[in-house]
């Protein structure tokens, strides 16, 4: 049961990982905006539910918010030619104030009788199992959407623009515009994680996104390593692997916490786990360098 909780949280953060996968793996863009857009998705959800909006409205607004954040980062990067990290940090920092303004104070709890996505699908007695099933359905929908998108002609343009922008431009693709759209989609996904986690936990907190981007990076890299070890070629399964990475990451953290480590060390622990996964292959010769952040 304890591990199932870790798995559900991993699944809820799966959308975040899909978003990071898009920015990092398709556009080679380590997008720090995530810390802000994840929280943005969360605070819009909390405030919207508290105000009695329907879940569909809340969902659309959360995704839209995330997409706007990604668009801002993308425009700063492509139009003003700022470095990718700096573009993301600027938007993330600005979002802190916006999130605080939306939330009104540093945290709010969801009303007990408010709408909640986890009240929809309740085939089991156990709450945790119901949450798991809901998240699994949401995850499968997102996976289907993303793997379809990447196979379309537009998706191919996104992948080419990130992979070889000269080649993309040579075939009539406005690589800058495609990058902005791609970052918008990525942060839309990231906001979905905020939407899900707030409903899972029952509250939104202004600091819920601190360090979340590192978690996403770690999950993407764990997932890709697993897929490389298993030698998986299918893109759909590789994308699913990213979410598997998220779950494995949560399990590692739960395991450590269950050994009696004080939760205040959780961020340090997260950073160390990512450092080990990302950095270790560089220290060992002849290891597949693909999993390195480059």
């Amino acid at each position: 049961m304890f591990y199932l909780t870790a798995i559900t949280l991993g699944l809820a953060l799966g959308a975040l990982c899909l978003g990071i996968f898009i920015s990092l793996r398709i556009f080679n863009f380590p997008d720090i905006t995530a810390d802000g857009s994840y929280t943005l998705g969360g605070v819009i959800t909390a405030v919207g539910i508290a105000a009695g909006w329907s879940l569909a409205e809340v969902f659309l607004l959360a995704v839209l918010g995330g997409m706007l954040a990604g668009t801002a980062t993308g425009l700063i990067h492509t139009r003003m030619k700022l470095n990718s990290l700096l573009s993301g940090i600027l938007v993330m920092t600005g979002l802190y104030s916006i999130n605080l303004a939306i939330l009104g104070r540093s945290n709010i709890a969801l009303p007990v009788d408010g709408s909640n996505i986890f009240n929809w699908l309740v085939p089991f007695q156990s709450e945790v199992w119901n949450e798991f099933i809901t998240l699994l359905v949401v995850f499968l929908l997102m996976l289907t959407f993303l793997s379809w998108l990447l196979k379309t002609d537009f998706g191919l343009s996104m992948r080419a623009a990130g992979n070889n922008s000269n080649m993309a431009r040579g075939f009539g693709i406005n690589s800058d515009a495609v990058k902005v759209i791609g970052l918008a989609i990525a942060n839309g996904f990231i906001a979905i994680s905020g939407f899900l986690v707030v409903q899972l936990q029952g509250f939104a907190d202004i600091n819920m996104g601190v360090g979340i981007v590192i978690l996403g990076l770690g999950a993407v890299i764990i997932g890709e390593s697993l897929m490389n070890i298993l030698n998986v070629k299918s893109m759909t399964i590789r994308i699913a692997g990213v979410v598997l990475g998220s779950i494995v990451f949560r399990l590692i953290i739960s395991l450590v916490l269950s050994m009696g480590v004080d939760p205040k060390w959780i961020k340090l622990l997260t950073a160390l786990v990512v450092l080990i996964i990302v950095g270790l292959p560089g220290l060992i010769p002849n290891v597949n360098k693909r999993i390195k952040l480059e």
Partner: protein
Amino acid sequence: MLEIKNVSKVFDHGSENKLHALDQVNLTFSEGSFNVIVGGNGSGKSTLLNLIGGNLGCDEGAILWRGKPVHKKKDFQRASFIGRIFQDPAAGTAPDLSLLENFRLAALRSKKKSLKVAIGKKFRRLVKRQLEVLGLGLENQLDKPAGQLSGGQRQAMTLIMATLDPPDILLMDEPTAALDPKSAKLVMALADTIIRENKLLALLVTHQMKEAVDYGDRLIQFHKGRVVRDLNEREKSAYKPLEIMEWFYKS
């Protein structure tokens, strides 16, 4: 008709060593012609290709295609009628995309990239047929990432990619410079066939004297940003290959 009108390009403006890469160049290329451009380093020949292709802007002058100015258009907007082959074989393909995916984008040069999944059996057969002609065995590697091909294979693939949605103009900047002699020969022969079959207006920049002698129906020599020789096929054939080779050493 592609017209280069009074085009100038200066690098390092204002500095001591400012460089007139192109100095009031006037040239007219007719459709379907195969033009070979030679000249030493810094003569301006690659700059000319970059100005036509659109990844550099003209300082002065105009470039007209079929009577309309195109020099203000962005490179990706010109892609609908201009195809390019670069010296670096890696430049023309997306390495992480499969051969088939690269070909799909190539087939959409002048078209919209919509939300349609279009790589199906039909498209696979089409690409397969195109690649079989090459005899490089690429037709059996359609799902391989393009980055795994050799330089010669990638350059040949880039050429075939140019034919799926053929441009009107093909710009080639030393396409064989990074290839071994055997691959270079294959790539040039393929380029020649593609240019003739699709009646492309081709501009080939080369340092390979043999290519300058063997290919094209017009030979232009650049020196210090200006055109110093401009020979049509008949004039060119009046020179002995050895004489043409001498130009390279003199400039």
